């Protein structure tokens, strides 16, 4: 069973507020990570996203819930959004490596 999160319905076409991303992650994603086989963040309709938002949503999700990494997927990303997603993935995985968390391997 997949957990599908559509970002545009909550944030419109520009995801920019890091504080709102952190609150959203805590409220809408964190409680449901364990009970789903796949977690899909759908960026369809999102034109752009800054690093504050991407790191608060994705890097922190990975560092707080290492178990999400094997089931995390992204859909609907344009080239701009994808750069920030990849950077946030890299940051989250780097934090896990620094902590020696096995999920990265």
């Amino acid at each position, binding site marked *: 069973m997949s957990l599908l999160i559509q970002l545009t319905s909550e944030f419109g076409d520009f995801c920019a507020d890091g504080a709102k991303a952190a609150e959203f992650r805590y409220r809408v994603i964190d409680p449901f990570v364990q009970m789903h086989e796949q977690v899909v963040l759908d960026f369809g309709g999102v034109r*752009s996203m800054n690093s504050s938002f991407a790191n608060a949503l994705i890097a922190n999700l990975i*560092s707080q819930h290492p178990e999400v990494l094997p089931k995390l997927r992204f859909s609907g990303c344009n080239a701009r959004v994808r750069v920030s997603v990849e950077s946030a993935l890299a940051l989250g995985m780097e934090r896990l490596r620094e902590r020696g968390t096995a999920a990265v391997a």
Partner: protein
Amino acid sequence: MSSGPNRRRFLAITAQTVAGVTLSGWNSAHAVAQDLSTRGALTLIDTHTHFYDPARPQGVPWPPRDEKRLSRTVLPKDYQTLPVLRPVTGTVSEEFRRRDAGGRFVELRQIGGGGGASVTELATEIADCLVPDANVDDPEESGLFDLLQYALSELANNVIQHAKAPGFAMAQYTARTDLIRLAISDHGIGVLASFRENGSAHWTPQLSDAAAIALALRSKVSSKSHLTTPWGDSVNAGVGLTLLRALSAATGGEFLLASGGAVVGFRTGSGELRTTPLQVGFRGTVCAMAFPRAKIKNFADLLHEAKESVGLLPSGGDFGKFFS
């Protein structure tokens, strides 16, 4: 004895005028004013006058026609015939008309401090204003719009997270230099105090303003990177300013960060940071950037280059399995 105004003489005149108004009515005040004018006791300059003629063919933006008290011809000759204002010997006319912005400017709006503009709205409004013809559906045409939206939103996030005081943003395009300039300033605690007040491991009593700014520009360093939110997250990844500096460099632009007693920045063609001591310290923080408009094409490529240059995007990293 000097015949010029002094404090005692000013208070006496003021008291006499106030007494004229409150005790004997407007005519007495007028008489006092005329008397003062005749004696040359005061030279009064009215610094706020409105001149307009509602009867002119194209009308006037203000006052509204249905405002009967104000909607009348008020030109200098009419102003001078007002008997009660006869003692006023001069005026400074305001060359200002508030009209519809028509997309040419965005009113100054507060960032943070409660009730301020949302990060998203602020960045989008200013980007819309500066690049009104951006084709947002074509990544090759919307690069400048995307860059402005990105930079302004990151700077606004910084004000909200660090300053402990409101900030303001401005941006401007000048055709002569083909430069887009933007700046965000706050009157908050400044960069050095942010390291100290947040108990950062980077802070030492010897840390200077210039050194604190240089630290803030380093990748993954923030005065709050060791703190966590109530949800256990890192408050700040410490990459915002690092990336903005890298984006400026990637476009051949300029970048400047000023706080306390130092300015740190670089100009086009020089990747080296240059520190300049400020003669007069600034308590808050100012960040300013400039981008040559003609050099900005595809923002995704630009952002990719900037992130790689500061080690935020490992080259050769394989993330393909995460995307569908």
